[in-house]
């Protein structure tokens, strides 16, 4: 069942262009040049119930703007957005009760009160029945290990603890669609992993649809089967994460450890040497030529270990952006 359907969505911002210097400032008093900047430029996609999707793209690519259009914060300049059968922009209460938005850089918790107070507020606002609230709160607190900080003032919590509480506040009403905008930003690697594990578990346990944006490829790699790559407001790729490698990476990496020292000139004919320390090397080889190169290396050298690997996903995505 489709929960999100986006057709030809456009969102433009009006930006004012100022010429540099004092003269430019004076000139701008009388005439200002405005320009329409397309933050999201004619994108279309559909998302099925229960999917966990990663939106990736550089800063200013249009990821967050798309998320804001889907959650009803922004009024689309044109196109059609349907989330759970609603037009998000209209902010129908039935719609708002089924979605949630968590932004890594903002919080909804009351700063000088303990998180439990904000949770109780959400219980009333989302009209969560008493026993359902208790059940969800205990389940989420256990999963995120926050039982002992429920009664501590939010301002006394660490960033990681706060983020966990933000997630709880956003999930108490069991949203069918969850938007996560950079949920792991600023967190240390241990906390990033904990949140990642939680998101994965939550998606599995509750079957919610989750749309995630992140700068950390690790988030996307660990969580999302499907990714949508956006740049300059346009979708460059929409599909399985594993396919993006096949589609965009024209090369493979051969990592080889030799039994004795070899000279770099000896391995140069096989491909471009990426790393080399005398006894081990990483060679970049066109994808189609990898099997025969491995065979040739094994024939020519005494090899301790040899592996064919895909290039790092970060590099592939970077290549997609730079259109290499």
């Amino acid at each position, binding site marked *: 069942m489709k929960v999100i359907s986006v057709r030809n969505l456009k969102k433009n*911002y009006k930006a004012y262009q100022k010429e540099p210097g004092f003269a430019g400032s004076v000139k701008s008093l009388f005439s200002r040049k405005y320009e329409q900047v397309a933050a999201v430029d004619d994108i279309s996609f559909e998302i099925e119930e229960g999917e966990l999707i990663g939106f990736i793209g550089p800063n200013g690519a249009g990821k*967050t703007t798309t998320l*804001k259009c889907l*959650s*009803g*914060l*922004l*009024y689309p300049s044109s196109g059609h957005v349907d989330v759970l059968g609603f037009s998000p922009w209209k*902010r129908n*209460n*039935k719609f*708002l*009760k089924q*979605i*949630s*938005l968590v*932004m890594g*850089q*903002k919080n*909804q918790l*009351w700063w*000088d*009160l303990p998180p439990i*107070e*904000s949770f*109780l*507020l959400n*219980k*009333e*606002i*989302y*009209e969560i029945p008493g026993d359902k609230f208790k059940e969800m709160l205990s389940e989420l607190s256990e999963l995120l290990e926050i039982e002992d900080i429920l009664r501590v003032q939010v301002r006394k919590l660490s960033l990681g603890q706060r983020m966990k509480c933000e997630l709880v506040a956003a999930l108490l009403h069991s949203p069918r669609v969850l938007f996560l*905008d950079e949920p792991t930003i600023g967190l240390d690697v241990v906390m990033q992993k904990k949140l990642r594990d939680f998101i994965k578990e939550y998606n599995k346990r509750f079957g919610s649809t989750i749309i995630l944006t992140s700068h950390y490829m690790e988030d996307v790699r660990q969580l999302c089967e499907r990714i949508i790559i956006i740049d300059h407001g346009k979708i460059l790729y929409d599909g399985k994460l594993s396919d993006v490698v096949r589609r965009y990476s024209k090369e493979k990496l051969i990592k080889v450890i030799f039994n004795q020292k070899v000279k770099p000139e000896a391995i140069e004919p096989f491909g471009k040497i990426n790393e080399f320390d005398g006894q081990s090397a990483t060679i970049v080889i066109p994808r189609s030529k990898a099997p025969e190169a491995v065979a040739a290396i094994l024939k020519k050298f005494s090899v301790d270990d040899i592996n064919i690997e895909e290039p790092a996903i970060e590099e592939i995505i970077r290549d997609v952006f730079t259109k290499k």
Partner: protein
Amino acid sequence: MKAWRIFLLSFQHVLENRSRSFIWVLYVLLPAVVFMLFWIGVVKSSGGDVSGWNFSTITSYYFLLTVLGSTVIAHIEEDVAEEDIRLGELTNYLMKPFSYFWTKFLEETPWRLIQGAFGVLIVIAFIFIFGNFFTLASSPLVIVLALLIMVLAYMLCFTFKMSLGLSAFWLTDSRGLFQILEVLLLIFGGFVVPITLLPEAFSKIAQVLPFSYIVYYPIVAIQGNLSITQMLTVIFAQLAWIFVFYLVYKVVWSEGRRKYTAMGQ
């Protein structure tokens, strides 16, 4: 129940910031005392009576002004403009299945109640010291109507300032606009001087503008200086202004939301 929970939570938040509330009361009290001393001087030099205002009515006017100024004057416009619209806090409100207007109303009301309570304490101290110089209505009906006028004054001020705050959807800096309207409220609301003491033209303007229904009329009502008919007229005018500002708010909100970019988020 939702409303009650928001109200209670806001109340806790205000109690966490009680010293801030007290300072805000002083902010209203100090200018009131300055104006009072000035007018006491004027009343004395005019032989004890200026257009029907005497020493007792003028001192109680300014002390009631402190209570009313703290209780009914909402300071929501900067919050709406700076925090919510400019810094993007509005996002949190927009994601909730509850009206922004009423959430703000429930968040602001505890501030007014606490500051009003501080104001009342100051007035009680004043009555204790200068009991003879304090005039207040004594008829229960007048007191009930005066309290209703005070509640409506708060609703009117709140609705007006909410609409004002939404100007930030269009203006990069709304603070200049807020200052201008604050000055108008000072003059035409009866802060500087009771509006009947203003030059005649100004006094007439003050009666047409909404500001006098926020401060001046609630004070003279609780002082017992208005007839029942006059009080009913005031209530009618307040309701009309609330209706006007609520309509303005609705239109500005629906247009402004299209402009919202959820920046800083």
